[in-house]
C-alpha cells in the first residue's frame, strides 16, 4: 500500500507551533509512506491540486492529511481524493490545528504530538477499507405532529409544494394555543382572525390528511422510511355523517359537569362539545367521563336530536399506520403549574401567590380568554370570583421563569411582551383602571417590540415596578400584593382586585414520552434538542426528524412560524431526490461467529438489529443470529463494544483500525 502524507501549515496557524517540515520528513520514513510533503494551504486550490497530482504521480492508494479538524475540511480532502481516483474512506485526517498547534505553546512538545497524531492516522489508513455510500429510497410524505400554528404552517408549506402531509393533533380541533389568544403583540391584531383562515385551508387542502383527536403511538424506521402508528381516539361521533349543526351540543342535558379546557377552566362545557365555535373540524366529541349514557345507559338525547344519525356510542379507538419520509415535531408548550408543590413534582409551586386558592389570581392564558371577544366574558374584563370589573390589576412576570429554585432556569421569552399587551388591553377596556407590572428585566428584542412596551408605559400609563412579589394574600375582598420596588429600594403593597401571573412556558407533559417514541433527545426540562444550536437549529439529531415551534424552547408566533417554514423546506429538500445517500459508517454482523445472545439488539438505540434464522437442510432453525438493517443503522458502534464474541464490526471505525491507532502510540 502506498500512502501519501500531506502536512498543512494553515498559513501559520499550524506552523507557528508545529514544525511542519519535520513532521512531513518524519512521516516519509515510516513504512508504507510513499510520499510526504508540507504545504502552506492544503485546502486551497493549489493545495488540492498538489494532493491530486501526487496521488496520480505516485500511484497512491490512501492519503493522510495533517490539517485542521475533520469537521472542517474532511469533505474537501475526500472530494480531492475521489477526483484523483481514491475511495473517500481511504482518507484520514490528523487534527494538527484544533487538537495541537492551537492548544499548545511549546514547539518541541507540539511537534512531537503532531508526529504521533500523523503516525496514528497512517496506521489507521493502512487498515481502512474502501466503502461506498448507501442509497435508500424515500417515501415522500411528511408526518406533522401537533396542529398549532407551527404545525399548520409546516403542513401548508409542504402540501403547497405538492407533497402529502399527515397532520396529527391530540385535541379535537387544530389551532393550538394561538386559537386561545385574544390579540397578538406588537400589532394588536386579533389572533383568531389571522389563524382561522389557515385552519380552514388545512382542512380543505387535498394534500393534507388531518387526524384530530389522535396521537402518534409508535414510530419505526429511519429517514425516508418511517412507519408511524397513529391512534385515532373514539369521538363517538361519525365524522362522515356529522354536519356540524351543533344541535346535540345545545340539547345535551349534562351542561356543568366538566370544565372547558379551551376556556382554561373559566367556563363549563356539555358532555358533547366542540372546543370552540371556529373549531376545525367542526365535529363534536363526546366526553365519556361525564356523558350520562356512559354512566347509566340512559339519556341519549343527542341521538334523538341528530337527524343524520351521527352519534355512535359504540365507536372504538382505531389504529392507523402510515409510511412517512420525514417527521416534523411541533407539539408546543404548556404553562407551568403554579399551584402547591407536591413531593412528586419536578417544579416547586408558588404557594405564596395563592393560585388555585384565590379565584382572581389567574395565569396568562386565563387572562387571554377573559380578554377575548369569544371568551367566557365576551371580552369584558371581569374577575372570575364575582364578575366585577377589576379596578386595580397586577401583572407579575417571570413566575417560574429564571428561577432555578423553582426548577426553571431559563427565560420564557414571550412573557415581557404578552404582559405588556395584556396590561394594554386592560387599560383599553377599563379606562379608569390601574395596571401594575412587576418585572425583573424587560426583554423586548424584536421588531417593534421595545416600542410596544414603551407604548404600554408611556401612552397607556401601565405602572412598571422593577422587583419581585413575595406574597399575595386576600384581605376584605382585595388581594394584597406584597413586593419590592428595587429601584426605589422600598417595599410596596398593592391592594389589587385581580392578579395575572405570567407563568413559565414548559414542555407538554408527555414531551419526553413522545421523544422516546420517535427517538429524539431532549434536555433536562423536556424541550427537544436541536442538532446544532447555531447551524442546525430546526433539525433533531435523528435524521429526518425536524423541530418546529415551542417544543424546542419558548418561542413567540413569528419565530414558530419561521421555524415551521424552515422545517418544511428541510423536508422538501429531502424529497428533491428519489433516493437518499447515507454515509456507509454502519455495523455488520459476522453471521458465522454470532452466538445469538442479542445483547446488540438490546443496546441498539435505533432498533436496527433484527433476528435472522439460520436453518438446516430440513428447514429446521438451528441458530438465530443478529442481522443489522443497513438502512436503519446510524453507525454509533454501541453494538460492537457490547458484542462479547466481537462478531460485529463498524465500517470506517473497525476494531483493527482502532487497535492500529492504539498500537501507534
Amino acid at each position, binding site marked *: 500500500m502506498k500512502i501519501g502524507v500531506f502536512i498543512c501549515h494553515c498559513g501559520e496557524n499550524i506552523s507557528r507551533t508545529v514544525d511542519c517540515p519535520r513532521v512531513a520528513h518524519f512521516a516519509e520514513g515510516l513504512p508504507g509512506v510513499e510520499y510526504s510533503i508540507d504545504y502552506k494551504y492544503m485546502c486551497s486550490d493549489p493545495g488540492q491540486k498538489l494532493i491530486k497530482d501526487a496521488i496520480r504521480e505516485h500511484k497512491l492508494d490512501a492519503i493522510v492529511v495533517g490539517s485542521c479538524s475533520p469537521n472542517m475540511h474532511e469533505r474537501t480532502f475526500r472530494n480531492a481524493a475521489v477526483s484523483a481516483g481514491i475511495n473517500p474512506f481511504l482518507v484520514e485526517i490528523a487534527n494538527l490545528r484544533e487538537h495541537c498547534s492551537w492548544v499548545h505553546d511549546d514547539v518541541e512538545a507540539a511537534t512531537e504530538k503532531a508526529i504521533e497524531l500523523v503516525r496514528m492516522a497512517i496506521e489507521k489508513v493502512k487498515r481502512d477499507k474502501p466503502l461506498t455510500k448507501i442509497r435508500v429510497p424515500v417515501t415522500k410524505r411528511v408526518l406533522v405532529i401537533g396542529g398549532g400554528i407551527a404545525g399548520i404552517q409546516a403542513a401548508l408549506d409542504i402540501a403547497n409544494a405538492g407533497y402529502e402531509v399527515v397532520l396529527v393533533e391530540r385535541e379535537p380541533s387544530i389551532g393550538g394555543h394561538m386559537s386561545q389568544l385574544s390579540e397578538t403583540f406588537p400589532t394588536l391584531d386579533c389572533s383568531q382572525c389571522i389563524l382561522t383562515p389557515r385552519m380552514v385551508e388545512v382542512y380543505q387542502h387535498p394534500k393534507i390528511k388531518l387526524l384530530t383527536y389522535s396521537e402518534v403511538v409508535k414510530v419505526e424506521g429511519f429517514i425516508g422510511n418511517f412507519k408511524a402508528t397513529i391512534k385515532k381516539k373514539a369521538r363517538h361521533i361519525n365524522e362522515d355523517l356529522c354536519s356540524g349543526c351543533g344541535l346535540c351540543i345545545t340539547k345535551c342535558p349534562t351542561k356543568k359537569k366538566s370544565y372547558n379546557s379551551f376556556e382554561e377552566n373559566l367556563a363549563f362545557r356539555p358532555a358533547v362539545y366542540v372546543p370552540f365555535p371556529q373549531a376545525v373540524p367542526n365535529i363534536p366529541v363526546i366526553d365519556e367521563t361525564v356523558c350520562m349514557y356512559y354512566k347509566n345507559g340512559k339519556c341519549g338525547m343527542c341521538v334523538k336530536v341528530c337527524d343524520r344519525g351521527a352519534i355512535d356510542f359504540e365507536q372504538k379507538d382505531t389504529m392507523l399506520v402510515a409510511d412517512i419520509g420525514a417527521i416534523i415535531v411541533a407539539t408546543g408548550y404548556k404553562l407551568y403549574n403554579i399551584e*402547591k*408543590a407536591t413531593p412528586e413534582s419536578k417544579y*416547586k*409551586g*408558588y*404557594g*405564596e401567590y395563592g393560585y388555585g*386558592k384565590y379565584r382572581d389570581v389567574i395565569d396568562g392564558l386565563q387572562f387571554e380568554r377573559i380578554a377575548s371577544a369569544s371568551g367566557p366574558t365576551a371580552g369584558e374584563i371581569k374577575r372570575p370570583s364575582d364578575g366585577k370589573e377589576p379596578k386595580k390589576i397586577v401583572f407579575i412576570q417571570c413566575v417560574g421563569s429564571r428561577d432555578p429554585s423553582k426548577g426553571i432556569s431559563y427565560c420564557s421569552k414571550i412573557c415581557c411582551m404578552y404582559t405588556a399587551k395584556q396590561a394594554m388591553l386592560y387599560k383599553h377596556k377599563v379606562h379608569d383602571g390601574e395596571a401594575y407590572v412587576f418585572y425583573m428585566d424587560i426583554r423586548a428584542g424584536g421588531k417593534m417590540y421595545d416600542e410596544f412596551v414603551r407604548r404600554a408605559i408611556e401612552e397607556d400609563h401601565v405602572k412598571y415596578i422593577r422587583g419581585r412579589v413575595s*406574597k399575595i*394574600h*386576600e*384581605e*376584605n375582598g382585595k388581594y*394584597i400584593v406584597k413586593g419590592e420596588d428595587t429601584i426605589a429600594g422600598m417595599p410596596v403593597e398593592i391592594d389589587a382586585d385581580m392578579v395575572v401571573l405570567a407563568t413559565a412556558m414548559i414542555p407538554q407533559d408527555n414531551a419526553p414520552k413522545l421523544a422516546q417514541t420517535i427517538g429524539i433527545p431532549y434536555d433536562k426540562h423536556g424541550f427537544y434538542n436541536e442538532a446544532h444550536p447555531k447551524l442546525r437549529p430546526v433539525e433533531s439529531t435523528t435524521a429526518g426528524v425536524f423541530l418546529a415551534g415551542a417544543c424546542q424552547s419558548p418561542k413567540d408566533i413569528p419565530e414558530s412560524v419561521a421555524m415551521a417554514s424552515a422545517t418544511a423546506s428541510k423536508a422538501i429538500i429531502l424529497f428533491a431526490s428519489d433516493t437518499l445517500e447515507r454515509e456507509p459508517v454502519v455495523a455488520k454482523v459476522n453471521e458465522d461467529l454470532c452466538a445469538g445472545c442479542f445483547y446488540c439488539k438490546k443496546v441498539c438505540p435505533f432498533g436496527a438489529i433484527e433476528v435472522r434464522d439460520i436453518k438446516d437442510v430440513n428447514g429446521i432453525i438451528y441458530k438465530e443470529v443478529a442481522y443489522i438493517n443497513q438502512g436503519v443503522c446510524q453507525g454509533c458502534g454501541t453494538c460492537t463494544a457490547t458484542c462479547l464474541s466481537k462478531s460485529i464490526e463498524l465500517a470506517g471505525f473497525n476494531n483493527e483500525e482502532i487497535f492500529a491507532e492504539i498500537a501507534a502510540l
Partner: protein
Amino acid sequence: MKPLTGGNMRFGYYPGCSQISSAKEYDLSLKKVIGNLGVSLDELDDWSCCGATSGHVTNHKLANGLAMRNIMLADHQGLDNIVAPCAACYNRLILSQYETFNHPEIKSEIEELLSTKFEKDIGIFNVLELFMKIGLGKIVENRKRELSNLNVACYYGCLLVRPADITKFDDAEEPTSMERIVEATGAKTVDWNHKVECCGAAHSIARRDIVVDLSKKIIDDAIAHGANVMVVACPMCHTNLDMRQRTMKKVYPGHKEFPVLYLTELVGLSLGMNEKELGIDLHYIDFKYDDNIIKNTVA
C-alpha cells in the same frame, strides 16, 4: 410521612434554652403529651447552645460547631434522631448537619474542632414531624374530648418549614401539616393568610416596635378569618405573639386579647389534661377551655 412502628419509638430530645426558661410550659406539655401517647424522650446528656443566638450570623464555624456538638452527643448516645421543639434550634441543627455532610471542607473543619468523625446522619425532627411519626391515629385514639368549638389558626412562623429543600416535610409557602394535627384533636382550623409570615423574632429584644407591628398583623388576620385561638410550635413565636400583646394593647388601643397556645398544649387539652398540668396558666394571655361548652365528650 409514614408513622414509625412500635419498636422504633425512641426519640432523642434536645430541649434548647427556651424550654428551660421562657417556654417551660412547652417543655412541660410536650413531655406530658408524648408520655400519654406512649412515647418517651431521651434527653441529650450535657447538651449545649444550638447557635441560634447571634452566633450563626457572626461566626459560621462557631455556629456549625455548636450545633454539631449536640448532634455528636446524639450519636454517642446511640440515638438515630433528635426532637428539637424550638423552631430555631430545629433549623440550626438541620442546617448545620446539611452543611457538614454536603461540604467536605466544613466537615473536616468541624470534625477537627470537635475531635470526632461524623458518619451517621441523625434525623432532626420538629414537633410537627414528631406527631406525624407517632401517627395522628394515636391522638384520635386517645382523645378524651373533642375541641370542636375551637377555630384554630395554625401559625408556623418562618423557620419551621424553611428552607424547604432541607427541611423537606411540607410546602414552605402553604404548609398544612399542623392543620392535620390540629384536626386530629377535633378542633377546626381556619384558612388564613399569615401562617408563615415573620413575627419579628429576631428583633424581639432590641426593636419591640417592629415586633408589635408584625405580630399585631398576624393576630388580626387570624381573627379576621374567624379564629378564636392560635397555635404555634416555637417559643420565639409564642413570646412575640403572647407576651407582646401587653405592649400591643398600649400601642393599639382597642386590641383585644387573643389566646396563643403551643401545639402540644392543644393536643394535651384534647387528651383530657387541664390547663395547669399543661402550664397554660403561665401564659400572659389567659386561656381557659370552657367545659360548659364541651358538647361531645368522647368516651
